[in-house]
């Protein structure tokens, strides 16, 4: 039973063995390390690049233009920001050349918080990525999806960004559906076959299991939990969090949540969102990128456009705070991105909020208990008082 990172590695092996992948490269991607998360151990076409993200993306574009099939890695998405205009070129080359050149490249990058990665190993990239037209963008939440989406990426004639939630790299399948067709069930056996040994690995070769060439198509969501009270539309690491929250709410409070894992952010499965929200009349969009110009905000807008008259409450977004970084300390990280506790609260409130037209106000239920985290610093240190104001029914605190 594979972890997500083993699933990525097995997919890359299938890519170079069966899909014509010519180059898997980036910083520390080749031997001896095989990737800082071990995603590229034992691969024949893996090689180390200079520490130069613009060079990596540029080289991948050029390799693709020359008819190769590259898979490039940016070690952490936090370091992809200086590549934005090259990402834009990868996305616009087919359009700008009016169909003369396509760019069949895959770009993998670990994203998101959850491993105490502090300011430069915790950022999300889905809001940035979905603002670059011409790319297909996926974000798996389990080993099966990571494997199948990556196979699709390596078969695409267009640039594909595979955003890998770094906190899930060691996560395993939670259900038989999340297992990779053909992989050994025994995790220890798989580890012995495909994980590089500690120490000298110069003579080591992996013994790849014969996993099936079964792709997961882009633009197809999956329903992780079925429910009737509220739809939670999410992806990546928070899909797992939403599943746990849905189970807890069902067991302890009788709230029935439907969890939709988009898997693909572009193209995305609008039909699945429509069907779920039509059923429940309530929707919470959930992701961990910063909340201003967040991809979930686009989905809120489109939901309003399409379903305004059918909604029982205003669509909601639970996302990362609009802060310059994700802090290292537990309390800071928890204050920056959605947690299980904050997700439980957001889902509960979305399920229980008074329906539009049946209440004086369509506002969240005010949570009486002390919030799990405090967005403010100690006022004594700053010498400024904290002012509390009611804004749209929410109690906001700021320094006055």
């Amino acid at each position, binding site marked *: 039973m594979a972890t997500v990172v083993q699933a990525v590695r097995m997919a890359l092996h299938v890519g170079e063995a069966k899909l014509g992948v010519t180059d898997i490269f980036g910083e520390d991607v080749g031997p001896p390390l095989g990737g800082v998360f071990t995603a590229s151990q034992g691969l024949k076409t893996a090689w180390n690049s200079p520490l*130069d993200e613009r060079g990596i993306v540029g080289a991948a574009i050029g*390799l693709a233009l020359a008819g*190769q099939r590259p898979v490039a890695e940016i070690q952490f998405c936090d370091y992809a920001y200086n590549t934005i205009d090259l990402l834009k070129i990868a996305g616009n080359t*087919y359009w700008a050349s009016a169909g*003369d050149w396509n760019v069949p490249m895959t770009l993998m990058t670990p994203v998101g918080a959850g491993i105490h990665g502090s300011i430069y190993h915790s950022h999300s990239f889905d809001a940035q990525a979905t603002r670059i037209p011409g790319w297909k963008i996926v974000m798996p939440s389990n080993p099966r999806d990571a494997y199948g989406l990556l196979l699709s990426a390596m078969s695409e004639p267009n640039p594909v960004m595979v955003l890998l939630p770094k906190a899930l790299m060691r996560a395993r399948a939670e259900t038989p559906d999340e297992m990779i067709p053909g992989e050994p069930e025994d995790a220890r056996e798989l580890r012995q076959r495909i994980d590089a040994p500690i120490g000298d690995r110069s003579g080591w070769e992996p013994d790849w299991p014969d996993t099936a060439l079964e792709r997961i198509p882009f633009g197809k969501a999956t329903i992780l939990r079925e429910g009737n009270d509220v739809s939670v539309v999410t992806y990546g690491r928070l899909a797992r969090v939403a599943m746990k929250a849905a189970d807890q709410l069902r067991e302890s409070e009788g709230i029935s949540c439907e969890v939709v894992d988009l898997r693909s952010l572009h193209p995305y499965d609008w039909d699945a969102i429509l069907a779920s929200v039509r059923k429940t009349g309530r929707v919470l969009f959930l992701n961990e990128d910063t909340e201003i110009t967040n991809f979930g905000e686009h989905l809120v807008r489109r939901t309003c456009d399409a379903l305004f008259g059918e909604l029982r409450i205003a669509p909601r977004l639970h996302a990362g705070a609009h802060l310059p970084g994700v802090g290292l300390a537990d309390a800071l990280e928890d204050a920056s991105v959605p947690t299980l506790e904050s997700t439980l609260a957001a889902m509960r409130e979305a399920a229980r909020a008074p329906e539009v037209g049946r209440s004086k106000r369509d506002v969240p239920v005010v949570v009486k208990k002390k919030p799990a985290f405090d967005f403010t610093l100690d006022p004594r240190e700053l010498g400024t008082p904290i002012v509390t104001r009611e804004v749209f029914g929410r109690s906001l605190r700021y320094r006055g």
Partner: protein
Amino acid sequence: MRDMSTHTSPSGPPPRGIAEPPRLPREQMLRVHELMLEGRVLEERLIRMQRQGEGYFWIGGPGEEAFNTVLGLLVKKGRGVDYDYLHLHYRSSATLLAMGAPSIDALRQMHNTATDPYSRGRNFVGHFSKREWNVTPVSSPIEVQYAIAIGTGLAQRRHGGDGLTIVQGGDAGTAEGDFASSLVWASRPGSELPMLIIVTNNQWGISTAASTQHGEKLIADRGKAFGMRTATCDGNDVEASWQALSEAMAYVRQTRKPFVLEAFVSRLYGHSSSSGSNYVSEEIDCLVELEKVLERRGWRSAGECKAMREDIEARMQGWYKQVLSEPHPKPEDAFDFVFADRNIVGES
């Protein structure tokens, strides 16, 4: 406004070549002249089109015709890794013409018609794309081609053969990190790339003189730190350009190692239509210089050159009129070519 008093190279006047370059045969020189003349007439027509409102913006390469025409004639033209890849910039019209591209296609791009074969009315003039000849899409950022060229160089290193990757940009763009990227990646020990890295140095970045921003005496010298062969040449001189490009290309084809070539050129109509696009008489005009040589050698007289120009201008006028009658893209065309449904570049 340009201040010509600051127009000096960082190390004084551009090198003019240590020795007189070998003479080219008469027919070759006459062919180069004809192409340069068409390139100049084309650029002048494009400038007029912009001024007449028949195009939104002009940018191009008058002043680079000598070097760029020679480059186009020396390219191993074709599609795929066996042939030369060209990662050019928006001053490369003479290279395209020398490779065989018709002038009317540049007029089409200027007038953003649906018949523009390079971008179907989507991009500025001079933003060429021709997969049939390995001309990768030119984009407006002045540095990105240096990073992208690494990839075709990698593919050609693996493939072998004698095809090479040619990347070209101006002096101002070398301040960007992508130029450094191309130097680093092309010279990885044991993994050197068959890349000809060209800088056409006109000593200007829009209104900013290179001498006020660049402390290096020669941009080509940056290649030396990476163990690369380097050279400079007088890009206003056809025979000097021919010699420099021939030698550099032969070196890269045979050794499969990179080469940095810096060519000193002129910028005869300023940066673009945004800076007026008026003729700058203080700079060396490579076409005038060539015509002097041809007359001196008795190969083409001033009168013959004038008659040739009038003939090309008449033909250009006909192409221009034709382009004005061609359709523009329709609104719905904007939604074409967002995603490919097949791997075109992977097809043999």
